[in-house]
């Protein structure tokens, strides 16, 4: 993983994906947005997947 996961992670942020830092209820979830697993998996959790779909047509400017 490593760079692959980071690239997916940062790309998702462009479309509204949010991080799960320590203390967040989803911190233990196996997703690249958990700070626990960020570089270890490129999995995107359902909530962030929905956020990305919701913002798919946002303006990039």
């Amino acid at each position, binding site marked *: 993983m490593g760079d692959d996961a980071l690239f997916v992670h940062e790309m998702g942020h462009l479309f509204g994906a949010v991080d799960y830092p320590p203390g967040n209820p989803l911190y233990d979830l196996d997703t690249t947005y958990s700070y626990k697993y960020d570089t270890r998996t*490129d999995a995107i959790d359902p909530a962030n997947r929905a956020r990305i779909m919701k913002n798919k047509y946002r303006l990039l400017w």
Partner: protein
Amino acid sequence: MELTARGALGRFRPKGTIALLRNASPSRFKRVRNVVLAVLGIFLFSFAGTDYYLRGQLYYTKRVINALYRDTWQVAFPPSGPVKLYVRMAADQTYRSLHADWKTHLPDVFDAAANRFAGEFDIRLTLLNLDAWERPEGLDDYADILKYVLRKLDRRGADVFVVMTAKEMPAGSGTAAGGTPAPPSP
């Protein structure tokens, strides 16, 4: 004209702002409108200014406008189909020194992500080019790098500019882990 309006409103005496506007003479109405516009303008200007100062870009300003656009125009006229985005990538000197194969490694990283986004979201990413860039000495903090990149690097028409940097681990643990944030630019 004024008389008729007064007559119609004779028994109804609105209060507050409505009264101000209804009973206002044209010049007074203009004055009130100008004051409202000026206050709004100053508010937006200082919001955007603070935003730009703190984040190095119009971060929240753009987010607010995007959210408004999404929840109004796009609700009325829902967009559909794939989203096509052009991407440029650049790796700094630390990243290049830690990944001697960066010229082949990064396109692979890009392809993997592009496949994910195309398959799962129908967001199609095209890589325009891969460059080297020199990170100025002493610019180490990620937030500062992002600010610098946003202000100094030219996206040259790309929708997304991905900048790769890396941190050298303290001596002892050998060489460092992989690349670090790819702050995409828009």
